[in-house]
């Protein structure tokens, strides 16, 4: 099975994001960037399938600026075989990403496209589903477990009402959730080896896809600061506090 994993370069999850002074968005100027954590989980899962022998080629792709090469090198160090950078300095919205990925899927012919369920910058969670619609491939979202079964995948997904087990024929799309795995530490020897692995650079503009943004961002605001917590001394005080607070304990049996 050949797996394609798209990875996005986002503001590092350890960084406390700050809204730009003019409200035009989140400050990304001089901020540490790294791989979207959900994508890291997707890469890890694919690497595990590669190690288990169910996957025989693992390709990672990133759509973004030149610096996304760093993200791709990380994916190569985690264990991907080859990387593709589709370079674009513009904001690329989920639909455009999905269209680019569709074109790439036509070229690379993967059996599975494994994506993070969402990127932590815009939390859109759209790319996977849109790609599924464009390719007309089945999709399973929020995967907590993936098992390869002959020409199909059995996926346990996180749903609102519990866990669902679905089976998908290949080729297919799966988006992964937090529970799926714990990505490995990248070792120095693997970073060194990753430097030798192939990294192909393509230009987004050459794909013949309409990349123009369709969404307009009106304003970006920091959330209101959370009111300070209060320490209570006893269970009774706690109950009293909860009662006096916007009916938190309403409907309790008296």
């Amino acid at each position, binding site marked *: 099975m050949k797996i394609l994993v798209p990875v996005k370069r986002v503001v590092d999850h*350890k960084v406390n994001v700050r809204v730009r*002074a003019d409200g035009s968005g989140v400050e990304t100027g001089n901020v*540490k960037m790294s791989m979207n954590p959900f994508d890291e989980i997707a890469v890890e899962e694919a690497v595990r399938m590669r190690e288990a022998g169910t996957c025989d080629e693992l390709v990672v792709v990133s759509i973004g600026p030149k610096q996304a090469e760093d993200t791709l090198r990380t994916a190569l160090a985690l264990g991907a075989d080859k990387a593709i950078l589709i370079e674009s300095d513009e904001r690329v919205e989920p639909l455009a990403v999905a269209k680019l990925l569709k074109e790439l899927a036509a070229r690379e012919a993967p059996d599975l496209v494994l994506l993070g369920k969402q990127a932590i910058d815009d939390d859109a969670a759209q790319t996977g589903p849109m790609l599924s619609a464009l390719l007309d491939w089945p999709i399973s979202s929020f995967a907590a477990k993936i098992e390869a079964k002959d020409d199909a995948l059995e996926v346990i997904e996180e749903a609102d009402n519990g866990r669902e087990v679905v089976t998908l024929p290949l080729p297919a799309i799966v988006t992964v959730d937090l529970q799926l795995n714990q990505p*490995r*530490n990248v*070792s*120095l*020897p693997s970073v060194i080896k990753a430097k030798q692995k192939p990294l192909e650079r393509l230009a987004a503009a050459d794909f013949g896809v309409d990349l123009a943004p369709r969404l307009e961002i009106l304003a970006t605001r920091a959330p209101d600061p959370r009111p300070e917590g209060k320490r209570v001394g006893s269970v009774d005080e706690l109950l009293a506090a909860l009662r006096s607070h916007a009916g938190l304990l309403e409907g309790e049996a008296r």
Partner: protein
Amino acid sequence: MADRESMQVDVVVVGAGPAGLSAAIRLKQNALKSGNDVSIVVLEKAAEIGGHILSGAVIDPVGLNELVPDWQQKGAPLATQVTSDRFRYFTSSRAFDFPTPLLPKLFSNHGCYIASLGDLCRWLGDEAEALGVDVFPGFAATELLVDDMNVVKGVVTGDMGRDRNGEETSGFTPGMELHARYTLIAEGARGSLAKKAIARYRLDREADPQKFGLGIKEIWQVAPENHREGHVEHILGWPLDDATGGGGFVYHAAGNQVIVGHVTHLNYTNPHLSPFDEFQRFKTHPEMRKLLEGGQRIAFGARAMTSGGWQSVPELAFPGGALIGCSAGFMNLPRIKGSHTAILSGMRTADLFSAALLDGRGNDVIEDAKNKVLAGALHDELHPVRNAKPLLSSFGTIAGTVLTGIDLWLQQLLKFSPFGTMHHKHADNDTLHLARNSTEILYPKPDGVLTFDRASSVYLANIGHDENQPVHLKLADASVPIRHNLPQYDEPARFYCPAGVYEVVKDASGMPSFRINAANCVHCKTCDIKDPAQNITWTPPEGGSGPNYRGM
């Protein structure tokens, strides 16, 4: 340990600061010139280059001019030239200017740039990689590899994926051995491997004890009407008393950003003193209030700097390598500048090692390294200011500054110093008075606008630290903090640590115990320096842990 992989290179450099990167770049430049191929690896414990760099910084470009002469065309991030310069003294309510004509030449920041040293390092990292240097951020060197002949043969990177008790977890990844003909230690002030090398080879046997200061820094976005891009101020006096060395700095960078910082010399004597709170208090001076009011704090960090200067520079070369940059201590204290000297020391040292590599040598001692490195520019930078710190220590801030001024004028005009070379008598861990002989210090409560507590400050350092890893702050004897430090010095770690790592907590019966919140550590190294019992050793945690500074 048998499953550790290893790799052979010509030179391994520990630390991607200005010293380490300059050495790496210079080694490659030399190799290109002489046509011999050298392989160079730079290890950096931060998740990305510059992530652990904290500096002022007003940068003197002399080093960069020599290293990458066309840095301007190549877009090095030195864009804001210093346009005006002020040297001030604060009392609790007033501010006085030192008259500029009285200031010796070297106090002038003319021709320097206000910049982020971290950003400059990231740029230098790209330069190094373009020359073929392998820079690996996210990997700390934790041990020197020393053979039976007591020769350094390289370093080991730290294991990853051990739990709190040191047991291997499912994510365990062993460290790697980097075997090298030469190892350059460029860890900055109070390097953990530098400390071991200095002790093992007694490199400091003919030097004075190294002296340190703790610098704490914030970046503020200020109201445009308060901002004067290119303006620089250095401030002595309040809130420190005259016997305590240190001072503040204010640098107006681009984009309405102002860098505010404060340094406390670590030879202070009152164990209750908290450099963090002194800095917070510094910001409440009417002059600072005026500047910062209506602004927003956007970054915080802390880092120790060396301040021993000329007398404290140890022997640089050891069998198989050398110390460079602030790991040896080339900081010019009165100028509070060490980045250009770090670059120069990296380059000078690289030249010596390039010659040795070309001769086919390796794993031996470079002879006379200290004299060769300290000749020329570094001599002219450090030798004249050698009495500044001892004068401040002996005579206090006001008299010490005046005497330093006189000393510098005499040297500038007559090439003569009435003081000769004064010495540092004590290491900084040796200067605390007993708690019972010291006044308690009551710091004002933070207002959350101009002044802050440690927790909300550390939050702005963007720390990443997997809690389930061995505690990287090692106590030689776990009972010392409570048994010795608490009764004698009121356990000063809880006051000097700017990140609130150390706490003394009491249980229900009032029994005190010592708590280490290792995940808060911003890698400033102060505990390793100041602990009166010298019981705390800072070791590198898992690679990529610690702050994620940008623009610092």
